[in-house]
C-alpha cells in the first residue's frame, strides 16, 4: 500500500480540519509529520497537555555558527492535529524532517515558515490572475473561506502549481530526500496498512516523486543510512557542537512577528477563531474586538460607522466571490469605514511584513486584534528548557546562588565581578525577578565602576525563566534576542536607543547577535534629532576607543552604531535649518562626527574627503544656521580639507562680521567648538608669514571697530564663543592682544577681574555720566 500525501500550509485551520478528517477516514498505521526527527523519542512530552501555542525550540552552536530556531505549534496547526489525532487513532506518529541544527536549516528561524515565499514567482502569477494583493489573501480566498469538499484536490493542484518547475535550494532538497527516506521506510513497515504523510505543501509534489523512486532496505539511494530497525538514522550533531531541542511556551505575538522569508500565516487570534467557530463567527468576533479596542482607546466609532463597516465587509465578500467573509474582507471593511484621514503607510495586510512606524493608530489596533495576546503554557511535567539549566549553572559557578536574600557589591574592573554583573544584567533584561540594581554606571561615560545589587521579591522567577527559554538556550543568547525584540519595538528615539545600546554593553552581548546590530543601525537611521543622536555617537565612540571596563572597545557592536550614526548625522546636519543662537547639542554632534572621522575612519563607509566636502558645503550654505556654518568651517579645517577651498579664516571672519556682532559670535562659537587649535595655533605659528594675518588680529580689529551698542549686543555671543577655550589658551590670546598694543603686563589680569562685573559696569556708567556732566559745563576733555 502506498502512502497518502497531504500537502498543507502550516498554521492553516482548513488544512488542520483536512488532516483530522483524513485520519478519521483512513485509520492509518503510520502518520509521518514534518518536524524534527530528533524529537521522536520525546513525542510524549508534546502531548502532556500543554496550553498552546508552544514551540519546539532548537539551538545549535559550534565553532563556526550559532543558530536558534522554532517550530511553533498552535491549536490549529495541521502538524499538531496530525500528532494528536494520529495518536488517538492508534497510529504510530513520527517526525520525519531533519533536526533543526542541520545545515539545511541555516538562516532559518521558523521551521513552519511558508516555503513558497522563497520561490515567489508562481504565487505572484496566481495573485495577478486572481487579482488579489498578497499570497495571504489568495490563500484565504482559495481555501479558508471555501467549503471543505474537494479541499484535498484543490490543495494538490495549488501546490503542484506553486512548486511547478521551481528548482528547490540545496537545503530544501536535502530535507525532501530525508523525508522521502522515512516515507519509504514507513511504507515498508506498514505492509498493508495505510501511511499518511503530512508535510508542507511545497514539499509534497517532490516527496511524492522521491518516495516512489529508489531506496531499498539497508542503504538508501539518496545516501541516508537506514538503521537496524529499518528506519532512517537521525543524524547526530558534530561532537564538538552543542545542540538540542526543547519545548518552550510560545505566544501569538511571537507567532505573528516573523517577517519576510520567515513568516507563516499571520493573525493567529483570528485563525484561532476560524478553527474554533468558522469564518463567519471569526469575522463577527474580529469586528467586535476591533471596535472594543478602538473604543477603549477613545477612538470614536459610531453605530453608523459600524453599520458601514459591516455592509462594506459584506459587499466585499460578495464582490470577491467569497462564500463566507475572509480576514481581509472584514479588515478592508473596517478600514474603509473608520479611517477618515489620508494614510502614511499602506494597509499592512496588503503586503507581507510587520508594522512600520507611522501606521495609522486604528490600523495598529486592527492588526493587534488579529494577532491576539494568547500566551501558551507548558504542562508542569515538561522538562525545563535549556535556559533554566544554563542560568542555574552560571549562578552556581559565579557564586550568585546565595538565595534570594543576598545582596552583591561588584567591582566592574575585576574580571569575575564583571562576569557576575553581566549575568545579573542579562537576567534583568529578560525580566526575571530576583535582583535589582541600586547603584552603578548609568551611561557609557559614567565613571562609576562598582555596582550594587539588592534582592527583590522573586515570585514567578521559575515561570519567567521557562518563558524566557523561548528566547535562547543560553543566557547570553536569550538576552541578545530579548534586546533585539526591544529594539524592534521602540519608537524611534535616541533615548530608547541609547538605553538598549548601553544594556547591550552591560550584558556583553554585542558580538553575539547579528540581528541586534542590524536593528540598532536601522533605528539609528530613523532618528531625527541631531543633538541626542550626537550624544549617542559621542558616547559610543568614547566606549569604542577607550573602554577598559566592559570589554567592548574596538568591538563590532559599537562599530556598527558609529557608522550608522555618522552617516545619519551628516545627512541631518546638511539639512539643518534654524535661526540665530548657538545650539550647543548640535555643535557637540558636529564634534562627535569630526572625532569619528579622525579616530575611527576605518569603521566608516564615508571617506574623509567626502566628509570634508560636506563640511565645506555647509559652511558656504547661506541658509544653514550661522553657528553650524562656523562649525562646518572648523570641521573642514580639522579634517585637513585644503585651506584654499575653505578660504582664509580671517577673510571668513570679516565677511561674517558684516552680518553683525551677534552672528560673528555664533559663528565663532561653532568654529571654536570644532577647530580652535587649527585656527589660532596656525596663526601663531605663522606669525612670521608677513602676508597672513592672524585670526586674533583680525578679530581684534573687527571688535575694536564695533560701535558701542553693537558691541554690547554682540557681547554675550562673543563671550560664549571664547568660552570654548580653556583658561590657559585664553591667557595666550590675551597675551597676544597685549603684544598687539605694545603693552607689557600680565595677561592673566585681563582674564579675570577681581571685582563683581556688575560693580564694574556701574562704575563705568558713573564715569561716563561724570565725564558727560563735565563736558556739558566745559570742564571736561582733560584726560
Amino acid at each position: 500500500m502506498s502512502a497518502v500525501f497531504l500537502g498543507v500550509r502550516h498554521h492553516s485551520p482548513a488544512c488542520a480540519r483536512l488532516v483530522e478528517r483524513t485520519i478519521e477516514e483512513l485509520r492509518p498505521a503510520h502518520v509521518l509529520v514534518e518536524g524534527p526527527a530528533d524529537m521522536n523519542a520525546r513525542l510524549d512530552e508534546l502531548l502532556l497537555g500543554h496550553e498552546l501555542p508552544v514551540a519546539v525550540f532548537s539551538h545549535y552552536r559550534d565553532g563556526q555558527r550559532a543558530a536558534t530556531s522554532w517550530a511553533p505549534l498552535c491549536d490549529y496547526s495541521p502538524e499538531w492535529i496530525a500528532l494528536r489525532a494520529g495518536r488517538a487513532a492508534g497510529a504510530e506518529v513520527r517526525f520525519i524532517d531533519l533536526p533543526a541544527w542541520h545545515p539545511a536549516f541555516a538562516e532559518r528561524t521558523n521551521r513552519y515558515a511558508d516555503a513558497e515565499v522563497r520561490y515567489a514567482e508562481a504565487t505572484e502569477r496566481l495573485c495577478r490572475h486572481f487579482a488579489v494583493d498578497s499570497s495571504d489573501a489568495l490563500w484565504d480566498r482559495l481555501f479558508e473561506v471555501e467549503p471543505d469538499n474537494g479541499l484535498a484536490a484543490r490543495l494538490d493542484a495549488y501546490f503542484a502549481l506553486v512548486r511547478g518547475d521551481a528548482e528547490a535550494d540545496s537545503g530544501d532538497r536535502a530535507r525532501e530526500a530525508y523525508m522521502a527516506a522515512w516515507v519509504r521506510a514507513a511504507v515498508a513497515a506498514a505492509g498493508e496498512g495505510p501511511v499518511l504523510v503530512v508535510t508542507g505543501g511545497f514539499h509534497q509534489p517532490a516527496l511524492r516523486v522521491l518516495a516512489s523512486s529508489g531506496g531499498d532496505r539497508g542503504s538508501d539511494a539518496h545516501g541516508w543510512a537506514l538503521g537496524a530497525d529499518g528506519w532512517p538514522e537521525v543524524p547526530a550533531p558534530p561532537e564538538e557542537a552543542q545542540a538540542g531541542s526543547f519545548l518552550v511556551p510560545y505566544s501569538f505575538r511571537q507567532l505573528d512577528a516573523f517577517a519576510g522569508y520567515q513568516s507563516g500565516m499571520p493573525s493567529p487570534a483570528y485563525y484561532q477563531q476560524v478553527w474554533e467557530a468558522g469564518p463567519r463567527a471569526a469575522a463577527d468576533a474580529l469586528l467586535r474586538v476591533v471596535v472594543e479596542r478602538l473604543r477603549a482607546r477613545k477612538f470614536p466609532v459610531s453605530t453608523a460607522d459600524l453599520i458601514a463597516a459591516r455592509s462594506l465587509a459584506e459587499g466585499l465578500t460578495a464582490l470577491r466571490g467569497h462564500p463566507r467573509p475572509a480576514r481581509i474582507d472584514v479588515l478592508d471593511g473596517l478600514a474603509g469605514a473608520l479611517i477618515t484621514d489620508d494614510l502614511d503607510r499602506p494597509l499592512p495586510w496588503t503586503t507581507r511584513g510587520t508594522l512600520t512606524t507611522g501606521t495609522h493608530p486604528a490600523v495598529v489596533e486592527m492588526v493587534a486584534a488579529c494577532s491576539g495576546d494568547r500566551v501558551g503554557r507548558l504542562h508542569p511535567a515538561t522538562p525545563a528548557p535549556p535556559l533554566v539549566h544554563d542560568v542555574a549553572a552560571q549562578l552556581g559557578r559565579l557564586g550568585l546562588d546565595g538565595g534570594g536574600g543576598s545582596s552583591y557589591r561588584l567591582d566592574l574592573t575585576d574580571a569575575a565581578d564583571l562576569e557576575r554583573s553581566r549575568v545579573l544584567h542579562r537576567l534583568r533584561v529578560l525580566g526575571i525577578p530576583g535582583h535589582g540594581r541600586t547603584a552603578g554606571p548609568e551611561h557609557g561615560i559614567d565613571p562609576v565602576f562598582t555596582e550594587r545589587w539588592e534582592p527583590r521579591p522573586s515570585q514567578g522567577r521559575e515561570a519567567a525563566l521557562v518563558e524566557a527559554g523561548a528566547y535562547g538556550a543560553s543566557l547570553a543568547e536569550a538576552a541578545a534576542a530579548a534586546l533585539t525584540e526591544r529594539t524592534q519595538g521602540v519608537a524611534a528615539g535616541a533615548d530608547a536607543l541609547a538605553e538598549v545600546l548601553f544594556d547591550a554593553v552591560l550584558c556583553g552581548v554585542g558580538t553575539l547577535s547579528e540581528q541586534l546590530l542590524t536593528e540598532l543601525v536601522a533605528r539609528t537611521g530613523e532618528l531625527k534629532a541631531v543633538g541626542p543622536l550626537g550624544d549617542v555617537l559621542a558616547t559610543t565612540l568614547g566606549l569604542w576607543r577607550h573602554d577598559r571596563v566592559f570589554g567592548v572597545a574596538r568591538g563590532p557592536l559599537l562599530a556598527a552604531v558609529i557608522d550608522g550614526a555618522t552617516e545619519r548625522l551628516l545627512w541631518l546636519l546638511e539639512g539643518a535649518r534654524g535661526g540665530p543662537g548657538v545650539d550647543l547639542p548640535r555643535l557637540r554632534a558636529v564634534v562627535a562626527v569630526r572625532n569619528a572621522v579622525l579616530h575611527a575612519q576605518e569603521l566608516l563607509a564615508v571617506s574623509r574627503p567626502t566628509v570634508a566636502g560636506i563640511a565645506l558645503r555647509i559652511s558656504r550654505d547661506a541658509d544653514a544656521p550661522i553657528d553650524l556654518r562656523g562649525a562646518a568651517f572648523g570641521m573642514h579645517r580639522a579634517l585637513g580639507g585644503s585651506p584654499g577651498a575653505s578660504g582664509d579664516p580671517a577673510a571668513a571672519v570679516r565677511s561674517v562680521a558684516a552680518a553683525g556682532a551677534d552672528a560673528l559670535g555664533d559663528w565663532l562659537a561653532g568654529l571654536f567648538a570644532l577647530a580652535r587649535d587649527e585656527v589660532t595655533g596656525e596663526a601663531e605659528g605663522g606669525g612670521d608669514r608677513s602676508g597672513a594675518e592672524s585670526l586674533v588680529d583680525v578679530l581684534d580689529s573687527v571688535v575694536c571697530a564695533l560701535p558701542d551698542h553693537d558691541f554690547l549686543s554682540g557681547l554675550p555671543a562673543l563671550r560664549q564663543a571664547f568660552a570654548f577655550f580653556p583658561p590657559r589658551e585664553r591667557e595666550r590670546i590675551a597675551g597676544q592682544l597685549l603684544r598687539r598694543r605694545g603693552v607689557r603686563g600680565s595677561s592673566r589680569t585681563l582674564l579675570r577681574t577681581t571685582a563683581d562685573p556688575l560693580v564694574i559696569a556701574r562704575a563705568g556708567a558713573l564715569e561716563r555720566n561724570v565725564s558727560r556732566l563735565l563736558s556739558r559745563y566745559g570742564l571736561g576733555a582733560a584726560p
Partner: protein
Amino acid sequence: MTAQTPDGVSGPSVQRPPAEVRYAAELDTLRAGDGDPRPPGWQLSLRAARRFIIGDTDAGISRKFVGNPSLVDRALVTLATNRGLMLVGEPGTAKSLLSELIAAAVSGDSTLTVQGGAATTEDQIKYGWNYALLVAEGPSARSLVPAPMLRGMAEGRLVRFEEITRCPLEVQDSLLSLLSERVVAIPELTGPDGMVFARQGFNVIATANTRDRGVNEMSAALKRRFNFETVFPIPDLDTELALVEAEVSTLLRRSGVEPPPDRDVLEVLVGTFRELRAGAGAGGSDGSGGSGTGSDRPSAVMSTAEAVSVAHAVGVRGWFLRGEPGSAADVVACLAGTAAKDSPEDLARLRRYLEQHVPRRRGPQWQALYDARHLLAD
C-alpha cells in the same frame, strides 16, 4: 455606446478622449458578458467593473490601474453603498485616472466632473441660470442650467469632484445635504421641478491630494459621508520601471525622438525618485527606501508621473542636443527642474542625496549620476 457620449469627443482631433471612448470596445465586451447582478442604476456589475479596471488578460481587458486590487474592491463596494468615495494621496498617484475609470465603468460616462479650485462656487456644483432666459421668462426649468451634481442626481450617474479640498470650506459643505438627503431643492422653481431627487446610480467620487490642503480641514460632517481610500505610489520598483518605460517610449516617439530610452538610465532615474519620495537618508541606502520619515521628504512631488516627464525631458535633451539617448548627466540636469522646482530646500536635499547617497550605489549609471552632480545648478 456612442449614444451616451457627448458629441465630438470621439473625433480624431481630440487630444485625450474620455475613458468610456478610449475603452469603448472593452466596455461593450464586458457589458455583453456580464451575468452578475448589477447594483441599481449601474451599467456594469461590480465584478465586471473590477475587471475593467484591474484587467483580465484572458478576456482581452487591459490592465489600466497599477495598484492594489483590494483598493479597487473597496472603492467599488463603497460606491454601491450610500457613502461617497474619497480618494486621497500624493499628487500624481493616478487618483483622477482611477476615478475616471470607475465612472466610465459604473455609469458609462466620466464627464460629469466638477473641478475644484479656489474659485469654485455652488453654481458650478448644483445649478446656475441662463440669465437671458431668467430675465425674459423668470425662473423655469428652461432657464435652469444644471451643473454636474444636479445632472448626476437626475440621471443616476457618478459625479467626479476633483481636488475637492481646494474649494472653500463652505462650498465643500454644500455637498452635505446632497449626500445625506440625496435631494436638491431648487427654491426658485415650484411644483415637481422644485425638488430634484437622486436616482439610483448617483454617487460622488471626490479626489484630494495631500499636498495643497490636506483633508484635515474638511468638516467632520462631510468626512463622515465619505469613505476614504489612500492611493499610494507604486510599491515595487519593477512595476514602476515598466510603467515609466512604456509611457516614456510613447511620449518620445511622439516627440520625434528616435532611440528608445536606455533602461539603465531609467532605472537610475526611477530609483532616485523612489528614494527621494521615501525620504532618502532615512536608512534607505539599500534602495528599499521603506523607512523614510515625513520630515525628510521633499516638498516637491516625486510621483511616477513626474518621473515620466523627467524621463521624457531626458530623452528629448539627449536626442536633440547630441543625437543619442539621454544619459545620467541629462538626468541630473533635468532633475533640478522637477525635484527642486522653486524650493531651495529641495534643491539642497537633492544635492545632498547626490553627494551622500548616490556614491553608495553600485553600477556604472549610478557612478555617472554621481560624476554629473556638479550639473545641478546652484
